[in-house]
């Protein structure tokens, strides 16, 4: 099991106060900002930026990067690994 993705799911649930949702309800590839996925909105996007800094020490300074990184849990995990690998 990929612990980074599991940790991300727990962090997303806590940071966004997703009531009635458990980590197992979130698929790695499901779209975070799509009604078919978690149906997040623009305020949630800001919360995800805070989440990356709070839990992973990563600052998202390029909006285009964030748009791509926040597509799914999988892309968030890839983004974190890439940024940490860059350091």
């Amino acid at each position, binding site marked *: 099991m990929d612990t980074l993705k599991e940790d991300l799911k727990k962090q997303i649930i806590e*940071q*966004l*106060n*997703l*009531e*009635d949702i458990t980590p197992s309800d979130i698929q790695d590839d499901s779209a975070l900002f799509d009604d078919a996925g978690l*149906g997040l*909105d623009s*305020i949630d996007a*800001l*919360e995800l*930026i*805070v989440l990356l*800094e*709070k839990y992973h020490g990563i*600052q998202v300074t390029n909006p285009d990067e964030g748009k791509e990184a926040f597509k799914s849990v999988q892309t968030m995990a890839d983004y974190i690994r890439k940024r940490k690998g860059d350091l």
Partner: protein
Amino acid sequence: MAYISAASTISHQPTFRNAGFSNVIQPLQQGSVLISPDYKSFIEAGLLRRMSKILRMSVACSKDCIAQAGIDQPDAIIVGTGLGCLLDTEKFLNNSMTIEGLLPPTSFIQSTHNTMAGQISLSIGNHGYNMTHTQNTLSFEHAVQDGMLLLNEGEEHILVGAADEHIEILDEISEKLKINFETGLTSAASFFILSNAKSEATLAKIRDVRTIGLVTDVSAQIKAFLAENKIGPDGLDLVLFSGKPQDSAEISYSENKNSPIDFTGFSGVYPTSSAFALHFAIDKMGNNKTLKHILICNALNKSNLGLTLIESVEA
């Protein structure tokens, strides 16, 4: 004059969707808790998850009012609040003191006083006039006045309400200020649809509402208010009051009828508790057809006086 077409209250009493509650509720005891409905019936999960107590109460009451009145949209949304969104304010301030780096945005966005009116608007898709009044204990009366002015200008239905929420630090502050409230500080929201015409939905009428700041002679103010509304010494059937206006003679009009009621004994203490009193008065009129005129005398803050004259549908 405004016709009240709907009323909805969430409080520490069983007021929500409970017509006739004024006959059965008992004075609050210390340690009472907010009686919340199942908010998922009124607010979609995506919005509900980030809403604090005051927002949940306000949106649920508003939707209940709109359903009761049988209207699609109010022409305006007007909210009165004394202290605003305290839970989010406290959360944001705690975050700003303890978190280094980026601060979570939600509590900051939702800490402003106008969040209730904004969330109601977003929840029902309303694009009309949207206003928040915050003037301490007279916030609700000012919201009602604003609504009545809009009705005079030709609007048909206005959603007017008030909400305040309790957080624990208020108890600490009142203790340090040596202010003791018998019933304790509480949370509540009351919303109403004010309409410009009588209909089958009409519950009662607001004949007049007045606010007086830095009041010195409460008795004279009440007498003048009643005289202007052509209500004689025997014209009032009931007085609901908060604070200590009973120290003078101004509520003696009801001596020969029903005893004046300190409504904070039922609502608990919060800055906009006169909104609870309005719903309480309407409900009492529904239960007792002999009640034609009720005066709400809001002297919760001794330097502020709010006067609301309510008239039954039959009067």
